[in-house]
Structure formats: structure tokens, C-alpha cells
């Protein structure tokens, strides 16, 4: 009986060997792919096992963490908290245990959770010294004062503000109302709060980042781009040459008259005057005269039609139509037809003018750092394009200053004592047959006495009252832009 016994012994040995091989396959060969499988809940547990790093504004964190208490499973240890979450939501995005994360929280997740390879050295050091792993920090370019001014300025109105430092492209304010507090959806059991914020349950869309991710018809503020195109293409040599524009002006090849808002002096008006009182006829004709290709080229230089504008949160693509006939070109050139822009895009337009024609790439993360603020990565300002020559930029500056400084200008309410302010109002009609309340726009920049330009800003208020055209942009949006600019200038002092 011993021979079969030895064979049975061998057989049992083979069974154990098969198990050993299978185990090596599982725990060695396949281990990493199983471990990092996003459906493997351990990935999420690991993610919330350490305090998340902070998002920092002006040296102070606007985020924090708390130990989860609402979690019945108790395996997600820390959850995100936000300081003044409603105000900062368009900057931070949210990080939720149940609903993942978005915007900066999502894009810089590796740094914030501490899992980024660049933190490996620091983590290893912490492990050896027995310290708990901690996420790194994201230092933003934002200005707390500007953000506060923007958020309070918008108040209960629906709208958005984007402010940029024209010289670097650093984003200074990014506000969107109505907003939401990401703290309320940070935990595991916030399903009710989450559902209440969704588009289908809340037509106000509080989670929409209007400053970056929503496009609006820019209305008359687009006339700045049209004016730039006219100057760049030499259609008119300067701001004070009379333009060859009739009144009434029919859209080319049609009998449809292009109307101005009210009885304003637009016949053969100079570009300065046309911008000051916002003549549709003058800029419509400029656009039609230049043609769609030249207009498109200039719009692109300002950042339109760029589908990959990352701040690093990707901005929605602002649109200047590429295929259109002549009358449509005229309409597009005064910010109608299919022209659409994000508030950030219009702030970029103002910033390029203010920065003597050079457009800097907008960014909102200045540094990534470890939790004790050793810098891992620093963002260098980058030139994005040069939509205007320096000379033409200065001409355009003087035109925009007239809009604010001239008693008849539409942007009077943006004036700041002792500061040179240039701006442009806009009222964008939309909806079927312009049935809905128009959007009130204002774009502007400030220039200090030393010639530096610390801030350019774009404001859009969605529920502008439908009274006389540009007065609305000037009345509703300009004061907000003014307080944002003032906040930036005051904080520089």
C-alpha cells in the first residue's frame, strides 16, 4: 500500500503547490492592478485616511478637515471642511466622500491626498520619523479681499466675477452666485444635500461655476475686441478718426436695420465716441468691413475658440463663430449671434488691453507644496498671445478710459479716485425674441499712477433689468467691478 500512499503524498503536495502558485499570481503579479482598482473601496478609504492638504489663499487655508462622525461604516476617517465655502466654491470645487471631487480638489488630488509621486520623499521621511502621512498644499493666486468684494457685490443676484492680474495672468477673484457650501456634501451621508444641489432639482444651479464654466453672449463688451481688430488691421488709424458709418445702418445684403439703444450720436462717430456710448451701428459695420476671417483671427488671439484653456481647471470654450455670412459677422462683432464668452474670457480681453497688448495665460495655482510648505512646483507666468501692438493697446486704453471717465460714458460708476480705470459695459439680450432678462456685463481694468496695472475684471449679472441697454451693464455690473478693483488696489498698499 505504500506506493499509492507516496503518490497521494505527491498529489497533496501538488494541491498545495497549485495554491501557492495561485497566491503568487494574485498577491504578486496582479497585486497592483487589484489594489488600485477604482472600484476597490480601499482606494477611497486610503484617500480619506489622512488629513487632506489645504488650499491656501493669501497664506491662510480656506479648507480644513474634520474627523467623520456621520459615517456609519467609520472607515473614511477624515472629511473635508471649508471656510466660507460658499464664497470659495468656484475656486476649490468640492471633495466629497460619496461623490468624488471636482475642479481644484480633483485636479490636485494627488498633492492634497499626499499620494503624488513628488511627495514620496517627504512621505518616506515622515514614515521613518513616525509622523502621520499628510497631504500637500495647493497655494492659489487668489486675493481674499478681491474675492470677498466680488462675492458680496454679487450678493443675492445671479452672476459671476472673474478678476486677473494683467501683468502675470494670475487669477485674483473667481466668484459665482448663487453658490453652495461644499462642506455640506463632504461626508458619506449627505445624499439629501447633494440631490438638492443638482440641476434637475435646483434650476439656479448653485454648483455651476459661472465664472469659468458658463458662457454668456458678451453683448457690447465684445466691441473692445472689434475695436482691437479695427486698429490691428489698420481699418482706422486711431481712436479719433471719423468712421464711415451711416445711421440708420442696414445689415449688409439685407434690409434689416441694425439698431442702437436709444438716440445716441453714432453717425460717422469716431471709435472713441462709438465705444463711449456703445454704438451697435459703428462696430457692426467695422466687423462686416473687416470680414469674418480677420475678426476670427483677432478673437482667437484674445483666447476665443480655445478648447484647452486650463487654469488648471479647464474653462469652458468661448466661441466666436467660424462660419457665417456678412450680416451674421456684423452681429457677431457686437457680441450677438453665436458669440459667447465666459467671464474669465472677457477678463482676459480687458487684461490684454491693460497689459499693453500682451495676453498672459490665466492661472490660479501659484505653488504646490508639502504640508510644511516646502515648494514642490511653482507656476511661472506665461505669455499666451499678443493680440495688440503696444501702440494700439494704448489707443484702446484711452478709448476704454473715456467710457468710464467721460460724463456721458456708460461706465461712470466704475470710477475710482486717483486711479485710471478703463472699462466697457454690455447688455446681452438672449432668449427667444429677447424675451428673457438681458445679462448685464462690465469689463474693466485699473491702472495706477506708476503705469502698472494690477487688476482686470469682468462681471456678469444674469438678471439685469431690461431697461435701456448699456445703462444696465453700467448700473448693475460696474459697481461690482469697481469694488473688486478697489479691493485689489487697497490690498497692494
Amino acid at each position, binding site marked *: 500500500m505504500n506506493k*499509492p500512499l507516496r*503518490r497521494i503524498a505527491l498529489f497533496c503536495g501538488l494541491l498545495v503547490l497549485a*495554491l501557492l502558485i495561485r497566491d503568487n499570481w*494574485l498577491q504578486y503579479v496582479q497585486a497592483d492592478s487589484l489594489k488600485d482598482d477604482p*472600484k476597490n473601496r480601499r482606494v477611497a478609504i486610503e484617500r480619506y485616511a489622512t488629513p487632506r492638504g489645504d488650499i491656501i489663499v493669501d497664506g491662510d487655508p480656506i479648507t480644513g478637515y474634520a474627523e467623520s462622525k456621520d459615517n456609519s461604516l467609520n472607515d473614511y476617517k477624515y472629511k473635508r471642511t471649508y471656510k466660507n465655502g460658499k464664497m470659495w466654491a468656484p475656486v476649490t470645487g468640492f471633495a466629497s466622500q460619496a461623490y468624488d471631487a471636482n475642479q481644484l480638489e480633483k485636479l490636485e488630488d494627488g498633492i492634497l491626498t499626499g499620494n503624488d509621486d513628488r511627495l514620496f520623499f517627504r512621505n518616506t521621511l515622515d514614515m521613518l520619523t513616525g509622523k502621520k502621512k499628510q497631504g500637500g498644499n495647493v497655494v492659489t493666486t487668489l486675493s481674499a479681499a478681491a474675492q470677498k468684494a466680488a462675492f458680496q457685490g454679487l450678493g443675492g443676484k445671479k452672476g459671476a466675477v472673474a478678476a486677473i492680474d494683467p501683468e502675470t495672468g494670475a487669477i485674483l477673484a473667481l466668484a459665482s452666485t448663487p453658490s453652495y457650501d461644499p462642506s455640506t456634501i463632504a461626508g458619506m451621508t449627505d445624499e439629501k444635500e447633494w440631490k438638492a444641489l443638482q440641476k434637475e432639482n435646483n434650476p439656479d444651479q448653485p454648483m455651476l461655476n459661472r465664472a469659468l464654466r458658463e458662457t454668456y453672449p458678451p453683448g457690447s463688451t465684445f466691441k473692445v475686441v472689434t475695436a482691437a481688430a479695427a486698429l490691428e488691421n489698420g481699418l482706422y488709424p486711431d481712436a479719433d478718426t471719423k468712421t464711415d458709418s451711416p445711421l440708420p445702418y442696414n445689415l449688409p445684403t439685407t434690409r434689416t436695420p441694425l439698431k442702437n439703444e436709444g438716440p445716441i450720436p453714432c453717425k460717422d462717430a469716431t471709435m472713441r465716441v462709438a465705444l463711449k456710448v456703445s454704438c451697435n451701428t459703428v462696430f457692426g459695420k467695422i466687423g462686416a468691413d473687416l470680414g469674418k476671417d480677420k475678426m476670427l483671427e483677432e478673437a482667437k488671439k484674445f483666447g476665443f475658440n480655445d478648447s484647452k484653456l486650463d487654469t488648471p481647471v479647464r474653462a469652458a470654450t468661448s466661441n466666436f463663430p467660424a462660419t457665417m455670412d456678412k450680416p451674421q459677422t456684423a452681429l457677431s462683432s457686437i457680441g450677438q449671434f453665436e458669440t459667447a464668452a465666459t467671464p474669465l474670457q472677457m477678463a482676459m480681453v480687458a487684461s490684454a488691453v491693460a497689459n499693453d497688448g500682451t495676453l498672459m495665460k490665466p492661472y490660479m495655482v501659484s505653488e504646490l507644496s508639502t504640508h510644511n510648505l516646502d515648494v514642490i512646483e511653482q507656476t511661472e507666468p506665461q505669455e499666451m498671445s499678443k493680440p495688440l501692438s503696444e501702440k494700439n493697446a494704448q489707443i484702446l486704453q484711452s478709448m476704454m478710459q473715456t467710457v468710464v471717465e467721460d460724463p456721458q460714458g456708460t461706465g461712470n460708476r466704475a470710477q475710482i479716485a486717483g486711479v485710471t480705470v478703463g472699462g466697457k459695459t454690455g447688455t446681452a439680450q438672449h432668449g427667444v425674441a429677447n424675451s428673457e432678462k438681458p445679462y448685464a456685463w462690465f469689463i474693466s481694468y485699473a491702472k495706477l499712477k506708476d503705469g502698472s496695472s494690477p487688476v482686470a475684471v469682468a462681471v456678469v449679472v444674469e438678471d439685469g433689468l431690461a431697461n435701456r441697454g448699456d445703462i444696465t451693464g453700467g448700473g448693475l455690473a460696474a459697481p461690482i467691478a469697481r469694488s473688486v478693483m478697489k479691493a485689489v488696489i487697497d490690498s497692494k498698499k
Partner: protein
Amino acid sequence: MSSTTNPSTQHTSTIGAIGAPSRRNTELALLVFAVVIPVFAYANVGLAIDDKVPTGLLSYGLGLGLLAGVAHLVVRKFAPYADPLLLPLATLLNGLGLVIIWRLDQSKLLQKIGQAGNAAPRQLLYTALAIALFSVVLIFLKDHRVLQRYTYISMVGALVLLLLPLVPGLGANITYGAKIWISVAGFSIQPGEFAKIVLAIFFAGYLMVKRDALALASRRFMGLYLPRGRDLGPIIVVWMISILILVFETDLGTSLLFFGMFIIMLYVATERTSWIVFGLLMSAAGAVGVASFEPHVQTRVQAWLDPMHEYLLSQAGVKDGVVHSEQAMQALWAFGSGGTLGTGLGQGHSELIRFAANSDFILATFGEELGLAGIMAILLIYGLIVERGIRTALAARDPFGKLLAVGLSGAFGLQVFVVAGGVMGLIPLTGMTMPFIASGGSSVIANWALIAILIRISDTARRPAPAPAPNPDAEMTQVVRP
């Protein structure tokens, strides 16, 4: 061993030299390790979870040490020549199992769904009962050949044990998986675990008597030796009844186990390779047959082939008449997340397996927290137990002892393979418990009894042959006369 070796020398080499050392002190030294390692593991879990040494460390250490000590003294007194490895290996597994069960008791998730909380104290109690039964077996079973007398009683006993869960009112009402529990006075018992041992006694007793008839009085049919019906008939009938009962109880793991045990013992008894072929063919036919009408089995096979699909179905809450389980995928994730060295005791998340995390799936926790290294060690310990059992069978001097030892070790080995293979996704999951480490009273008690029987057989096998009777001729040859 080559066929030219003199059969008599071969024989003496397996019974051991006269005056062989008893190896009791080796066993004691190994037992110290088998107790100290789990005690350290216990402290490790406490430090990892609560940052402090668990309060029960002393009582746990003393408890395990005491049980091991008692078992050792019983072996020293009543089975002095027993294999020195079996007891320490079983103690080590049992101790580590207790640690992991206690570790899963700390999981709030498992506490919440009622899968853990006080399983460890209960398991310690069962272990104490198991050591008691272990001692009883060694004290009262002076010679394993006594069991031979109970061949046919064992047959009836095994069938009764297997039928118990089907008795109305006695069978425990358990929704998931197999109907293999009975509840008596608030305790759940799995009679199948005990049936394993009792059936092995029947097979061994019957085959020992009939082995010559089975091996020799056979007809050759299509290259296979088929025995006469009257020799094989009774055993086939009993075996088939067991399998059928288990199929009705949907306990496929155990049916596979019994099948394998039967084939192994038949092969050893008859020395006919054709049994292996025959057995494999039959098991293949049986598996396909059962799978064709049993939705429970079909899901298990699907979960084995595509665990992710089953996971997604279970997450989506698909209701199509069968229970979709995320367990197979969760177990794979647990193993994968452990990697080579594991997360460390107390620092994994195998509680995500939820149902049966501390019983059928306990190996996944070992995998996650002790890693590839830990699992390989555990598997090798099981392998050693099986091989020591077969070594005992080799050493045994009587055919009954040989058959019983190989039947028990083979069944033990198959059980380890079926459970570990199922949890690791090597074969479809069948739902048995990992001997010694899984939470469950019946399993721990039955397996300690199994070890006791093996120790008894090994003691008989290694016991020095009695001193030869004085040879009357010897003296004459020594007388030298001038």
C-alpha cells in the same frame, strides 16, 4: 524506492528503529513557538487598532498556553511516540485563527451587520472543548484498531449526521448557501464536519476487509479493472447516498471532499490506478450534472469566471432569482491589496467582504494583513500537516491504520485546497471552512478530533517494537566449549 530493495529492510525503515526517541521535548519546544507567535500577533493587532496592548493579552496568552500545555501533557502520557509536529502545527493555526477572528471582531462594519463582535471568545471556548475532545480521544482510544469494530455503526452514524440538517425543526434556518447546519440549544452545529471523520472510519474498515477482493477479483473492461458488484456495491451505495444528501443540501464543497476521500482510500486500498481515472470521470460527470440544474452552483461558477461581473450585478441590486454576491471580487481585492508583505495585522479592510468574513473567507484577511508571505506560510503549515498525516499512514503497520490516516489527511488536504482555492479564485467557491483558523465550533472540534486520531495512529506506528522474546538457541550458540 527501487523495486530491487529488499522488502524486509524497506519495512523496518518505516516502523523506525527500536528505541526511537519519543520526540516529546521537540514537540514542547515547537509548542512554545506555536503559542508565542499568536500572542505576539494578538499584541500587534491591539497596537495597530487601538495603539495599546490589548487588555485581554494575558488571559489570551495563558488560555492558549494552558490549552496547548494540556494537549501536550495528554500526548506525553498517552501517546508518547506520536508525531511531534502535528500538535504544534494545529496549535499555531488555531492560535492565529483566534487572533484574526478577534481582529475582525473589532470591525464596526462587521459588528453592525452581526457578523462579528464576540466570535473570538466563543472560538476560544470551542477550542477548549476541542482540546477536551482531543484529550478524550487520546485517553480512551488506546489503539486505533478498535475503531475497526465500528465499521458499520460508522456508516449509519455518518448517514444520520448528514441527514440531520434536513430534519424539519432541527435544521437551522439559514438563508445563504448550503443547508448544512442544525441548531441545538442555541448552538449551530455543522454535522458534516464530524461526518467526515466517521465516514473515513467506515471507508477504512470496509476497504481493509474487501481490498483483496476489490483489487484481484475484477474484470478488465475498456482498459479499466472493474470489481465485482458485490464487493464494491455497498460502499458505492453509501457513498452515493452521502453525495446525494449533500447535493440536496447544496453543500458541494463537502460532497467534493467525500468523493475525493473515497477515491483516495480506494486507490490506496486496491493499488489500482484505474480508480483515479474512474473517479475523475465520475466527478466530472457529477459536476456537470449538478451544475446543469442547480442555480446556486451556476452563480458560483459565474462568480468564479467573472467575479467583476457578479460584483457589478450585486452592486446594482439585480434581482433575477439568484443571489449575486460581491464576495468573490471583494476577496480578490483583499488579496491584491495585501501584496507581498501585507498591510500589517489590524490595518487591512477585509471586513468589506462582510458575510462570512471570519469563517469561509477568513483566509482573505490573512492574505490582506499578512500578505503573500503570510499566506505561503499558512499554506505550507497545512501542507506539513497533510504530509505528516500521510507519513503516519506510511509508517502505520496495519492496513486499517494506513487507510484511516491517509483518508483523514487526504480529506484535510482536499478541504484546504477547496476552501483556499475557492477564496483565491482558483476554483469556484463552495463554502467550507478553513480548518482551525475559521470561526466555527464544529469545524474546530472536528479537526482537533481528526488530529487526535492521527496522533494516535502515529503513536502506534512509531512505538518501538516490543523487545524480541529470548531466543532459546541464542544461549546455546554462546556457550563455547573446548
